[in-house]
């Protein structure tokens, strides 16, 4: 007999009690499998971003131009991000209302938004003059700031991601 879920009282419960949410929650293998793909995608995102950030900080790969480095890494960063976003959304559906009251989940979403803003500012403002400092081992302060901010935010995202797993039962 199928388990009867209570009537949802808000949008998060509606997501959690949807057939997709309950299928993932009830499956023995779906959640860990999605988590596994999420981790592989996440380390790809973090690792390729760190390669670019280290170049911007002049700490690694200084013989290569910033444009070359960006061309090498950016599409893999995006590929990893899309995969992480899809698997993350599926994980979210299985425990939506629990995640929405977890502060680390909410902080993680905030840090992701800040990382996006940092990237957008770098791309649309700082990067406009890239041809002037493209091959230089010493980067302008705007580029260094973007790199440090990016590393701090992404490490924060990883930390909150792990903290969620350790605090799920606390905030009901």
């Amino acid at each position, binding site marked *: 007999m199928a388990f009867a879920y209570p009537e949802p009282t808000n949008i998060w419960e509606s997501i959690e009690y949807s057939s997709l949410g309950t299928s993932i929650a009830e499956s023995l293998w779906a959640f860990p499998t999605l988590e*596994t793909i999420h*981790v*592989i995608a996440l*380390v790809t995102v*973090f*690792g390729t971003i760190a390669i670019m950030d280290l170049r911007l900080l002049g700490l690694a790969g200084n013989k290569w131009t910033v444009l070359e480095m960006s061309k090498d890494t950016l599409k893999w960063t995006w590929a990893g991000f899309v995969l992480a976003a899809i698997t993350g959304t599926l994980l979210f559906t299985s425990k939506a209302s629990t995640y929405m009251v977890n502060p680390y989940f909410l902080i993680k979403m905030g840090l992701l938004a800040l990382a996006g803003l940092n990237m957008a500012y770098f791309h649309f403002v700082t990067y406009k003059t890239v041809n002037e400092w493209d091959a230089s081992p010493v980067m302008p302060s705007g580029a260094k700031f973007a790199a440090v901010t990016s590393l701090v935010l992404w490490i924060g995202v990883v930390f909150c991601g792990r903290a969620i797993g*350790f605090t799920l039962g606390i905030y009901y």
Partner: protein
Amino acid sequence: MGDFFYGLTDWLRTTVLLDWAFWIETTGFNRLLVENFWGVPIAQVLHIIGIGAAFAATLMMTLRVNNLAGTARSIPEVSARYIPWIWWGLLWIIVSGLLMLWAEPVRNMVNGVFWVKMALLVVTVLVTLAYQKSVSAAATVGGAGWNVGGGMRLTGWFIIILWCLIMAHGRWIAYAPV
């Protein structure tokens, strides 16, 4: 598959590993990690950061060998950038992994998934060492116009698959019955 891991864990429970795990639980460093709520999560974050560094470096090497990234630079140039990050990253992974092992010795040492992960890690290290040596030797002999053969390209992807399997086992340690 489940039966295999269940049987392996059952057997591990009869070995000296169980005594070692219990001994680790009596150490002061274990107490320190366990009694601090953030001990294990921080060790895991450090572990993930190391995996990010080493896996991304491995990926960029594989992409270069397959002419999918970094084609403007020679393979020795790309190797000089990424190979140290693979090995220093791996060292970081092992140290942070030891922190996790010390914090939760029974969960890890008396767990079939953990030991399959360790076996995969050893295979990955050996394959990577042999691979880096053969690519480097072939690149030196081949000179600037050298193009990587099909076997070497496939081996690069094989190493990526091995890393993914290691990460998968790492995640499934948490779901294996101990």
